[in-house]
């Protein structure tokens, strides 16, 4: 309970900030999306082959595109209040259902990518700091910069070429092999896992580089602080000093950066999901843009903003757990 009492004011402040930002995002999205030259009816017309003009006019009327922009915006906001994110012209179903079917895949991919990038990043960062200025350190730093410089889609293509095409170990596409000998839960999990390996690696590579560099710098920084020398003066073993004292303090900047990176990782998932045909929100957003599906585009931008805000809140909670100096929203320690 003590934790909740301590964290409540910070949560309130963050949620208020989040709400404000979300409102700004909504307005921004609406304006951006409606500046688009083409309109969805062209897509639908294009889609249905040789539809005649009367039908095109009917479509415009039906989807309310003839109304003035402000009134469209008012409808949009009022619908938003009722959690109705609008109807997808193209997929003939509410946008919310469409997103909810695709969201789990993206969340799964991102969670794995975050876990992998944090774990690997911290491990590499700590070992590099532990063996500072040795060949291991230089090699890992160089490798980190290399991964940082590799475009996600390119690493995707190469991984597919090697592991899927040449070696055939891993599938190159989709989330599940669709077969019908009833898979038990374990086989299903294993199947999804096999599909998950390459996309997660592609998405995580970039962030492993970032986290390992931050972790290394942070470890070196912390190791120079007084309480480390004091701990060694108390005869604690070097590993105890390194892992229990230095590591935990060095984690603080990494968690901050992890929060900030979530937004860019969601952006990165667009590329990875398109390269691997992963049925997630990223690929859906790309399709939404090319299909000029207004409601879907706005909904995805909104959901992404919500995800980023929620995850940042989680990161703050994590930060408070790690750093007791934070209380009542005043981040002394940060």
């Amino acid at each position: 309970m003590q934790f909740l009492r301590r964290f409540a004011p910070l949560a309130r402040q963050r949620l208020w900030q989040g709400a404000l930002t979300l409102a700004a995002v909504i307005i921004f999205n609406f304006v951006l999306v409606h500046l688009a030259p083409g309109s969805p009816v062209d897509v639908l017309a294009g889609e249905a082959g040789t539809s005649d003009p009367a039908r095109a006019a009917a479509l415009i009327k039906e989807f309310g595109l003839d109304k003035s922009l402000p009134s469209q915006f008012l409808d949009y906001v009022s619908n938003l209040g009722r959690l109705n994110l609008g109807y997808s012209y193209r997929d003939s179903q509410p946008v919310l259902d469409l997103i909810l079917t695709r969201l789990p895949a993206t969340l799964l991919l991102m969670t794995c990518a975050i876990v992998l990038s944090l774990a690997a990043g911290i491990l590499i960062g700590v070992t590099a700091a532990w063996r500072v200025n040795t060949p291991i350190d230089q090699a890992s730093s160089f490798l980190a910069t290399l991964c940082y410089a590799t475009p996600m889609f390119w690493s995707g293509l190469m991984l597919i070429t090697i592991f899927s095409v040449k070696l055939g170990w891993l599938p190159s596409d989709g989330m599940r092999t669709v077969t019908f000998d009833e898979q038990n839960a374990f086989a299903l999990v294993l199947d999804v896992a096999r599909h998950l390996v390459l996309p997660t690696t592609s998405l995580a590579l970039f962030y492993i580089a970032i986290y390992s560099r931050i972790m290394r710098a942070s470890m070196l920084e912390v190791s120079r602080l007084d309480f480390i020398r004091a701990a060694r003066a108390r005869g604690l073993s070097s590993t105890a000093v390194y892992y229990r004292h230095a590591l935990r303090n060095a984690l603080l900047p990494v968690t901050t950066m992890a929060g900030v990176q979530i937004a860019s990782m969601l952006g990165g998932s667009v590329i990875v999901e398109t390269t691997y045909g992963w049925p997630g929100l990223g690929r859906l957003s790309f399709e939404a843009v090319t299909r000029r599906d207004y409601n879907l585009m706005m909904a995805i931008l909104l959901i992404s903003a919500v995800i980023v805000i929620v995850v940042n809140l989680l990161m703050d909670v994590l930060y408070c757990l790690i750093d007791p100096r934070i209380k009542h929203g005043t981040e002394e320690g940060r």
Partner: protein
Amino acid sequence: MRRLRKFWFVFSRRRVAVLGLVILAGVIFCAVLGPLLTPYRPWQLAGPPLLWPATDARFPLGTDVLGRDILSGLLNGAWVSLSIGIAATSASLLIGTTVGAVSGYFGGRVGDGLMRFTEIFQTIPSFLLILMIVGIFSPSLGNIILAIAVSTWPAVARMVRAEFLSLREREYVQSCVVLGMSAPRILITQILPNSLAPILTISSVMVATAILNEASLSFLGLGDPNMMSWGTMISIGRNSLRTAWYIAAVPGVAIIVTVLGLNLFGEGLNDALNPRLRAE
């Protein structure tokens, strides 16, 4: 001159930074002198298609699906990527610095308002924003630069604001205020020069990120069709992965090397310009 020698002394101590500089120089060399180095234009159907690298003297790096010379594509790509990177970064720096300076120096409601505005761009994933902008407006060079600039200037704004907030408190700025110097003059003549170091450092990383973004856009088919950029070359090679994977691999390596060079150079710059490190 002395400062330059001092800068070079610290900069050259980090071997990696020098490597970055060498790579950067190489890429710029290719970008500028590209057309003179190869007889073919990037789009020109110069030879037999699907030639593997190092099999035909005329095409050292081979040809793509339509027989276009990959080497001249690479050189032209260097020019495209660098120009897009630099243009987008300078636009982003311009917007970001002004917003950051204003909100950092004046603070108060204006400052917070501006920061709230930049926060939007923090919550919307940057590449998704770029995608939306380019996807919506036709994928031309101008729109790509606009999209990248729009999605990256908030990072600059936040950094510049932090710099200005700290520099604003320094005595030499206070004394200028006392002398009755106008606010813009103080901003430009006093505070800006001192915050150039971090701005310069971040700019090289931003150029790298801009190149990565442009490559991703071209890969998704949203690049400028009349520009043979590295991303376009990779997207051309995307479908022939099984038969001719070099078409996608070679430009990918070019991107990695360039971005690597820019990042290493940025690190070197950071150490050389960062007063605290310079003292060691």
